[in-house]
């Protein structure tokens, strides 16, 4: 038989970027424990609409944990307390009847709040656009075996490429730093032969862009790794640090 629970939600409501915002309390009754967190919000929103009230705005797309659109801070934890889980994959069976949930948007100067729980993460897109690419000549795809990739590098590169850009690392970081995100985007290319031609320029350009967007500095709390739904490791940050150091020295040597 389906089990249902009742919850009290304290949700951040903010009409627009200029609005000061405030918490509002909603009762969420008869929530199926089989529902995902977003489905629970859907139920609450349907009720709000029936009552003629403004539904809670939140971002979502695939609801399969692979697109990186959803995300909110639940009781102080980005995507909720479950490990390696996006908000859409967080299920209501993880909560107890009578729980009070405080739901907030990512809070970072570089991610302005658009409405309620929706934040503008285009700063991430601008970082990618600044240098997170490789240059490939168009034409016939070359024979795959002409470019050899050591197995450990392929694994590490793929692990880094699992980043979905959801922004939980920034949300969880006490300094709102984007180092885990940027390090994943640097590492996925730095570990492969295709990423080598632009490697040393890329790291300097992307770090400069990251700073310009107003993200904080990493102070090695490692909360980002703990909050990441894709388990991106802080060893990527170490790689970013050493690549950036070498890139800066290299740039000086080359003049």
């Amino acid at each position, binding site marked *: 038989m389906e089990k249902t629970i009742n919850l009290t939600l304290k949700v951040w409501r903010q009409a627009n970027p200029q609005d000061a915002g405030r918490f509002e309390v909603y009762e969420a009754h008869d929530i199926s424990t089989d529902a995902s967190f977003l489905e629970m919000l859907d139920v609450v929103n349907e009720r709000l609409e029936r009552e003629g009230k403004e539904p809670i705005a939140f971002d979502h797309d695939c609801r399969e944990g692979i697109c990186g659109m959803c995300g909110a801070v639940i009781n102080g934890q980005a995507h909720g307390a479950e490990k390696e889980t996006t908000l859409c994959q967080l299920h209501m069976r993880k909560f107890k009847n009578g729980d009070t949930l405080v739901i907030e948007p990512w809070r970072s100067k570089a991610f302005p709040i658009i409405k309620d729980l929706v934040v503008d993460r285009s700063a991430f897109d601008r970082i990618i656009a600044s240098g997170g690419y490789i240059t490939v000549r168009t034409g016939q795809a070359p024979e795959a075996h002409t470019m050899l990739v050591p197995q450990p590098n392929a694994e590490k590169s793929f692990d880094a490429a699992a980043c979905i850009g959801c922004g939980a690392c920034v949300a969880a970081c006490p300094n709102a730093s984007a180092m885990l995100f940027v390090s994943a985007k640097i590492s996925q290319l730095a570990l492969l032969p295709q990423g080598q031609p632009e490697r040393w320029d890329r790291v300097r350009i992307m770090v*400069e862009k990251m*700073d310009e967007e107003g993200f904080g500095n990493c102070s090695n709390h490692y909360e980002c790794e703990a909050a990441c739904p894709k388990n991106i490791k802080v060893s990527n940050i170490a790689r970013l*640090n050493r690549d950036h150091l070498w890139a800066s020295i290299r740039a000086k040597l080359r003049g």
Partner: protein
Amino acid sequence: MGNSVLKRSIMKKQIVAISGLLLIGFLFAHLAGNMLLFGPPEGINEYAQKLQELGPILWLFRIGLALTFAVHISFTLWVALENRAARSGRYAVSNDRGGTDFATKTMVYSGLLIAVYLLLHLSDFAFGDHYGEATIVAGAETEESLGLYGLIWNSFIQPWRVVVYVFAVGVVGLHVSHGLQSFIQTLGFANDDVLPVLKTVSRIVGLLIALGYAAIPIYMIVRHYTIGIGA
């Protein structure tokens, strides 16, 4: 790319990291010298005398050390202020996820406490009067000055000073327990295999520094209340 390299976030932190490692190096050198306090008064006094005789070299070293502190503190404050500005507002509920720890969260505060204590410590010992009345130890075999040893002894037979000192070196140990592994990570030498080991090693080094320094006043006050200085 007109931006100065020094302004880049990673560079700033690497400067903090390198200056921090130099300061950890100083902590060990200083602790090694302090071990002479477990011996007779002549040991530390002659050591201090030899350092004084270095003259300009000693001053060069002192200025270098002061500059290292200045760089470490100013770059940290720069980074810390930027970090504060990067948060658009505080979370209503804040909850750690198991990544961070007490030492990491309190780095700025432990650092500021150390800076304040350092000033007291310098005025007490380094720039204190090594020959005056405060260096004559009551109950010693001689009624003459016991030099720097006497100054330190007279300080550390006062329980409140022992408490303040032990607290201060505890804070230093806490600061180092994060600082050392943070140095390795920030310079980029860490990976998935070494980082967990580094965290443990860093905590052990922090603990050793705290215990090493704390042993001195505890030894002195225990000795004062038991066998006394003369034995």
